[in-house]
């Protein structure tokens, strides 16, 4: 038997869990100061997640999916791409969206059950959160094709969970991107759980990155709790795509430190001890340790950051809570560019019989 093809999957990490550089850092990370924006973004996201959960618990928000422990993925991705690139997020990507310019109020409106949250400012071309698992991967390939067709130096970047890699959409889209050499980057947030399903019941593949091999494209693994590594690997993939060298799949290994969503209770299906161990790997302390040792960060800055971030978040929460609910007719708006005459009567009926709109708790 002759060997007709061989493949390998590589793994990238710069900061080990203790926050020591395990190898020389990439250009952008040489100056610790340059890493502060990434650190601040991760901290702000974590504070936001905590706040959002409180809002849900107190009946002021709908089901919410926290990114606890996976902040480095969203921040690494968003910091590596350009304003004109297009992000196709799933429902756990507000860390990336915030850096892209989506406001906290918009994010809260969305999870509060108000479509206006997806009419976000900042990245007007970015896609809204994709809730049906995997669909966004197909959309990303179409977005990338449009860029390629128009000779625009733009890249589509989509994010999907480890569970999402079991979905046909993921494979069909990667395969299509390979054929089209489309300027797209597929990022897997491998937080090792899909609600109650551990990574092991999703696939017998030893890595998720190797799924790229099926599409004939490059697949890489990165420490998803090392924001430097994530940003670096994404940056390489994005520039590769931008210069016409095709798609890349990146598996970012992290861990879901929280429940799947506020509707979930992870203690039903996983061992709290394992979660406790995973806390030793989380991205924020890791980068903080590095910055502190590099004398780029200290208690004073930390306190100020926490204070300022909390204020920003609280102001946004007030604005969110003060936002009047959408009007009944909103459900007929934007269904079509123009509402068909055939539907005017339905709209009138809706207005006539609409119950008074519920408070935030619905």
């Amino acid at each position, binding site marked *: 038997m002759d060997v007709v093809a061989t493949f390998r999957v590589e793994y990238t990490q710069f900061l080990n869990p203790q926050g020591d550089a395990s190898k020389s850092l990439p250009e952008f990370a040489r100056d610790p100061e340059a890493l502060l924006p990434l650190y601040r973004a991760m901290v702000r996201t974590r504070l936001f997640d905590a706040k959002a959960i409180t809002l849900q618990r107190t009946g002021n928000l709908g*089901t919410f999916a926290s990114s606890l422990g996976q902040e480095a993925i969203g921040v690494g991705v968003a910091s590596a791409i350009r304003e004109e690139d297009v992000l196709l997020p799933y429902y756990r990507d507000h860390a990336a969206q915030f850096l892209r310019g989506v406001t906290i109020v918009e994010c809260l409106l969305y999870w*509060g*059950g108000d479509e206006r949250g997806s009419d976000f400012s900042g990245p007007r071309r970015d896609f809204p959160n994709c809730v049906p698992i995997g669909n966004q991967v197909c959309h990303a390939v179409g977005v990338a094709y449009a860029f390629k067709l128009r000779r625009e130096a733009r890249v589509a970047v989509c994010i999907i969970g480890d569970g999402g890699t079991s979905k*046909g959409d993921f494979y069909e889209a990667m395969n299509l991107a390979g054929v089209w050499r489309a300027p797209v980057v597929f990022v897997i947030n491998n937080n090792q759980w899909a609600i*109650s399903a551990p990574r092991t019941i999703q696939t017998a593949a030893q890595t998720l990155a190797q799924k790229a091999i099926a599409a004939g494209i490059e697949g890489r693994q990165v420490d998803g709790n090392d924001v430097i590594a994530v940003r670096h690997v994404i940056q390489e993939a994005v520039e590769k795509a931008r210069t016409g060298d095709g798609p890349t799949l990146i598996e970012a290994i992290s861990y879901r430190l929280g429940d799947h969503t506020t509707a979930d209770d992870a203690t039903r299906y996983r061992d709290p001890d394992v979660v406790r161990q995973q806390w030793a790997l989380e991205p924020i302390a890791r980068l903080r340790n590095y910055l502190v040792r590099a004398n780029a960060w200290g208690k004073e800055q930390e306190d100020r950051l926490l204070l300022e971030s909390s204020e920003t978040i609280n102001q946004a929460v007030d604005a969110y809570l003060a936002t009047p609910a959408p009007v009944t007719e909103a459900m007929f708006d934007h269904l079509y560019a123009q509402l068909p005459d055939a539907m005017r009567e339905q709209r009138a009926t*809706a207005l006539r019989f609409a119950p008074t709109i519920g408070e935030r708790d*619905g």
Partner: protein
Amino acid sequence: MAEINLVEAVNRALAYEMAHDQSVVLLGEDIGVNGGVFRATIGLQQRFGSERVIDTPIAETAIAGAAIGMAAMGLKPIVEIQFSGFIYPAIDHIINHASRLRHRTRGRLSCPMVLRSPCGAGIHAPEHHSESPEALFAHMPGLRVIVPSSPSRAYGLLLAAIRDPDPVIFLEPTRLYRLFKQEVMDNGEALPLDVCFTLCEGNDVTLVSWGAMLHETQAAAHGLAQQGILAEVIDVATLKPLDMKTILDSVAKTGRCVIVHEAARTAGYGAEIAANLAEQGLYSLVAPVQRVTGYDVVVPLAKLEYQYMPNVDRIVSAVKTTLEAA
């Protein structure tokens, strides 16, 4: 005899049949250790093992397809689709294979499977979690389509669905999962799959509905009763095949019919019932049929979902219209 809610009734029916029929297997996302996101399968994996209660990867297409392969080999797979908004990747296998395996092999192979899925709005769920797709399946030849509206009917109809030798789509209204309890005897007795249930009799108007909307429909009937208007309330329960006779007999008596469903109006299943009235019940009708349905819009997010769903006022007003007519 215990009082249980609808999701508990589903759980009991599944447990009963798994205990009595070794060929029954469950597959779906988070149905094992976690007992399903609505807990419909709670305790079943512990009791029947992970070979018969299978936590699957997120792959609705392959889940439906694999179930067909299992069914063709003599198992009775029961698939849980986590929410009806995620049922669409399974449609290809349902319509192109499950519904026609018996037909295209002239009975050589068959497909005794049940596809369960929560459906409907009203629990402030996120996007895509509030769909009512029953009409799509009702249009597909070779299927049976069931939407229960109470714990006891959920129990009896689900048992019947599992025992049916052909594929059955079983849609469970999430809003009813915990809305109310009922005494349900866990005696393994199935309900018939080819009849509508008349929930209360009346001579003034016929109210036809199914699933969660029966709750509003019955509330409307109560309100009308106070005003001396006696409505006959029919729970369609099994949408396909449809027991039109029960509905026609009722309309022959009342002369008036209001059909209530949560799904979008256009080409919703209410149209099929109204069409049958226009064909077979025309001479009984003394007033135009009324459909009180969800609007032809995307089901809005939580803030407006109750503005979308038919409510008691709309139903009562539709009834009044039919009474004023003629």
